[in-house]
Structure formats: C-alpha cells, structure tokens
C-alpha cells in the first residue's frame, strides 16, 4: 500500500465513479430501448400503410400514389419483400432526407405490383438524442447533489475522528501538555476515543515510571558504591596485603569510577528529559572553549587549537554549555592519537570541532545513540555524545557528523 488517499476523497471517488458508470450504462440501455421502440413503431406504420395501399389496389384504385411516401409500380416478376433505409431528395424541405422504406410485391387481379412505402425517420433520431441527453443531465445533476450532500455529511460525521487524529499527531511522550479528545455520537468513534485516551495515558505513565526508575536506580547505586569505595580505601591502608592484591583492589577503584561516571551521565540525561535545566543565561562559548582547553592542557593534551576570530555567545543553561563543550572535546581526545591536532572554531553560528582519523565510522547513524561505541578500546560510558545530542535537541541546535579529508568533523549549528 504505497499511495495513501484521504478518506473523504476515497469515498467520493468511488461514489463519482459509480455514478459515471451508471449514467453511461443507463443512457446506453435507454438509447437502444427507445431506438427499438421507435423503429418498431415506424415498421408497424409502414406495414399498415402498405396494407391500406394493397386494399385500395384491390378495390380497383390502381393509381394510388403519393411519392415519395407511397409508390406503386407494375412489375414483371415478383421479388422478396425488403425493408431498408434510403436517402431521398425531399422537395418540401429542399434537402436529402433519411427514409425507412418497405418494398413488397403483391399480385392483385393477376397483375404484379411493387408497393413501396416510406417514412421519414429524422425526427425520431432527434427525439432519441433528446431523451438520452436529458437522461444524462438528470443523472449528473442528481449525482452532483448527492455527492455534495454526502461529502458534507461525511465530513460532519468523521469530524471527531479527524480532530482526534490531529491530537494524536501532536502527542509527545516528553511533553506534559494534555491531549483534548473530542467525543462523538458514533459508537465506534466514541470507543476509539476511549481507547486512545487509555493508551496514551498508559504510555505516558509507563514512560514516567521508567524514567523515574532509571533515576532511582542510578541514585540508589551511589550509596553501595560509596561503601565499596570507602572499604577499598581502607583495605589498601591495611598492612598485610601484597602487591598482587593491591593491584587487584586498585583496579576495582577504576571500575567504581566507571560506574560513577555512568550514573552521573544517566542522571544528566534524565534531568534534561525532565526539563530540569531551566536556568538560561548568555554563555560565551568562545571563552568557555578557551577555559576548557586550558584545563585539558593540564592533562597534557596540548594539541587543542582554538581559532575562532570573534566572541560568540548563545543563551542556554551554563551547566549544559559546559557539558556540551566538555563532551565534544573529550570525545575528540579519546578518538585521536596523542599529539595530533584537534581544532575548534566558531564561525557564523557554527561550531566545528575536528580531529584526525584514519577511516570513517562504520555506523555514523548510530553515533548519537546511547551506549553505542565504535570500538571497545577505550572505556567510555557510551553516553557522552548521547548527552550532546540531547542538549542540542533541547535548544534546537543542529548537530551533524561527517568524515572528510581524514578528519572526523562534528558541527553544531546554533542558528535557529
């Protein structure tokens, strides 16, 4: 089912099509039936005239003639009776006219006669046409009226359906806005409405639950993690552990750190979903990038280059701005080898960050999905770019990725 047609148009189309076929067929039937009737009438009148002529001949009136309507000729031989159409000049009208002609051969008092009677059929043809045309006109008018009436009525009956459909199109899991559904006196529509209300409420409640659950889980995990962490910190200060045990214990610290990061990012994602970042300020991104580069340099990532010419500011939550820039830079750092340049530039509302890469990503379309990783090489949470995307979506910024000239390039378009 590739092509979708509007309901009203679809029902109207069937209606119109049926109407046309009906008008055509009925006109056809009417045409042939009337034609048959008329011809039958003409034939009857020809025969009756012929009979009168014959009777006249029998009664001795041998010169009974009225050309071209009645002609009587004496012939040598009898022939077969013929009924046919013929065109004859009509002096009264001064034109050629179509006649129906009956020729019979009779023997009266031993003399062979050919009796020819004719009847003009022109008038009957026009009569026929008038009947067919008026039939079509009546049918078309009736259909136009019915079509109009039907469409108006359809639209009225279906209106709750269309209104509810529009409402459903506006349905969004994340928005708090409630949907106003219209009731209908049509049982099925009323049922549909009730089902939609039930479904949307359920979906929303489930979504809220899930979100709350995610938040609760990450929150509840903090305390046990804190206990594990604290115990480990004490164990490494106890005497009597050996180097191997120490190595294993400190590697647990690394895992705890990962969990901690994961929790923090899940919480951030949930908070963005919950619209908890309402503190909108003018944030100078160029300054922010400079600050970030400064702090990353302490990690000896001295390969960050910022080349914006003008200061650029955007209005958003400063905390989210920090996360946005931070995640983009750390993503670039994670995926570029040491000492290779990472360049950042803001020009014409567009932030572009690029770093060297040997080959393009295998699945760039999944790049902003949660927990998507191109490689297992680094122990990332897989949420950094998902958060970046979420922040961009929140403020209507457009983020895109491309691989060009051996560089991974992320662009954020701040223009709205």
């Amino acid at each position, binding site marked *: 089912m590739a092509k979708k047609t509007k309901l009203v148009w679809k029902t109207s189309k069937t209606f119109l099509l049926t109407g046309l076929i009906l008008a055509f067929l009925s006109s056809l039937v009417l045409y042939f039936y009337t034609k048959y009737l008329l011809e039958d009438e003409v034939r009857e009148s020809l025969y009756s005239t012929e009979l009168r002529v014959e009777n006249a001949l029998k009664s001795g009136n041998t010169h009974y003639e009225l050309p071209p309507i009645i002609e009587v000729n004496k012939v040598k031989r009898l022939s077969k009776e013929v009924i046919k159409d013929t065109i004859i000049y009509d002096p009264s009208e001064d034109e050629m006219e179509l006649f129906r002609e009956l020729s019979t051969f009779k023997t009266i008092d031993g003399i062979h006669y050919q009796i020819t009677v004719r009847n003009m059929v022109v008038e009957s043809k026009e009569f026929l046409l008038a009947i067919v045309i008026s039939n079509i006109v009546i049918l078309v008018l009736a259909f136009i009226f019915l079509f109009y009436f039907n469409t108006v009525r359809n639209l009225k009956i279906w209106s709750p359906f269309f209104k509810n459909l529009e409402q459903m199109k506006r349905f969004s899991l994340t928005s708090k806005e409630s949907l106003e559904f219209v009731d209908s006196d049509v049982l099925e529509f009323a049922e549909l409405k009730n089902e939609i209300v039930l479904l949307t409420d359920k979906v929303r409640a489930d979504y809220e639950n899930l979100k709350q659950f995610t938040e609760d889980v990450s*929150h*509840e995990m*903090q*305390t046990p*993690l*804190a*206990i*594990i*962490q*604290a*115990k480990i*910190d*004490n164990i*490494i*200060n106890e005497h009597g*552990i050996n*180097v191997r045990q*120490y*190595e294993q214990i*400190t590697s647990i*610290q*690394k895992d*705890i*750190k*990962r969990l*901690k*990061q994961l929790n*923090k990012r899940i*919480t951030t994602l949930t*908070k963005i979903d919950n619209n908890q970042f309402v503190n909108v300020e003018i944030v100078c991104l160029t300054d922010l990038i400079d600050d970030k580069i400064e*702090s*990353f340099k*302490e*990690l*000896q*990532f001295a390969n960050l280059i910022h080349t914006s010419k003008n200061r650029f500011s955007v209005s958003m939550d400063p*905390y989210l701005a920090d996360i946005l820039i*931070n995640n983009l830079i*750390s993503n670039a*750092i*994670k995926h570029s080898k040491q000492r290779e340049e990472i360049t950042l530039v803001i020009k014409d509302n567009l932030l572009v960050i690029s770093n060297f890469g040997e080959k393009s990503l295998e699945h760039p379309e999944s790049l902003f999905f949660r927990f998507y990783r191109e490689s297992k090489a*680094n*122990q*990332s949470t897989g949420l950094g770019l998902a958060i970046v995307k979420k922040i961009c979506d929140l403020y209507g910024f457009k983020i895109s990725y491309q691989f060009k000239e051996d560089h991974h390039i992320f662009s954020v378009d701040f223009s709205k």
Partner: protein
Amino acid sequence: MKYLIAEDEIDLQQSIVTYLKRDGNICEVASDYWEASEKAAIYDYDVIILDINLVTGSGLDILKILKKEKKKAGVIIISANNSLADKLEGLDLGADDYITKPFHLAELNSRINAVLRRGKFDGDEIMEFNEIRIDTKSRTAYIDGKAISLTRKEYDLLVFFISNKGRVLSKEIIAEHLWGDNSDLLDNFDFIYVHINNLRKKMTTEGAKYIKTAYGSGYQFIED
C-alpha cells in the same frame, strides 16, 4: 580533632571512622536524624560529616539547628544526589563543603583538612609537616623557610599528600583528585608519574624525602 559522622549507612559510617581515626582523631557517630540533631546541638565538634538523606530526617535541618545554636563546627555534606540545587541549598545553610557519593576517603579527608584550616587560623591558612610549611592562601610551599616553586598540579598534589600523610594513595585516587571527571580520559597514568616525579625531585633537592612508592604503583607520604 573531634568529628561527628552522621551517616545512616553503618558500613560507610564505620569506614569513614576507620580512616579518620588513623590520625588519632576522635570520631563520634550518629546513625539517624534524631541522634545526629541531638549530638550536634549538645556537643562541640571540629567537623561534622553530614549525610543529607538521613533515614528519619534531612541533614539540611541539622544545619539549621547548628546555626540556631551558633555552633562553630565545620560541616561537610555528603549526598547521593549530584544536584546543583541541593549543593547550593546546603552551602547557603552554612555547610563548608559538599561531596557526592561515591567518594574516596582520601578526598574526604583532604576536604576536612581544608575546612579545618579555614576554621582554625582565621584567614592565615597554614599547613605544616616537619620542615614543610604551606600557606594555602597564597598557595606557596616552604621548606625550612625557603619558598619552592611548584606548578599548580604539583602544589595540589603536595597538599593532598600532606592531608593524607601516612596513607597509601593509589594512582586512581590521585588522578581523580587532580583531574576530577576528566581523569577517565587518561589511558594510562603516565601523567601522574610525571607530576609526582617532578614534585619529588624538587623536594628531595631541599632534603625533604617523604614521597615513597607503595606496592609498586601507589604512593605514600611518610617519614622514615
């Protein structure tokens, strides 16, 4: 020093006590809101470590009690909730610092020390260890009265070491203290070696040989 640890998770509470007692501090504990508010109102502590979500009440209310009773105790809030609003509310109500679970005990200890310095010396924030003297206000370290030039990270490292003197500090703990969340960008901890070795060299030339290696990859700031 005398500390009150108001934390309803007994395991965490006891781990904190164990860590802090090593320096000969007195640690009292409170396992619920009522115990904590009672102890906070009656006794005097140098630092109170306060869980914001105590089973029977909010740590924020205890801050209000401390304010009402005009207690001088420094307060460090520990919370499972990493929310800016909570943090700001706690600091507004007079808390000195805020730390999110999970945290390293060394980190907590270093924060406690910072709070203590601010409270004790009324602006003259001085930290001492044998011949080492650190002015935390001007961020300068002296050995036998002679100023030594340290980078920002080396300075932070030295303060962290002295705050947690005698304890084994793993690379992970140090990395997290120095670089926070960005420390997960480190593929290996070579950067830490660089900073620690530089600090160790600068101190050794002045005769202060306190940074020792422990278990091959950890560090300990300790007297022989």
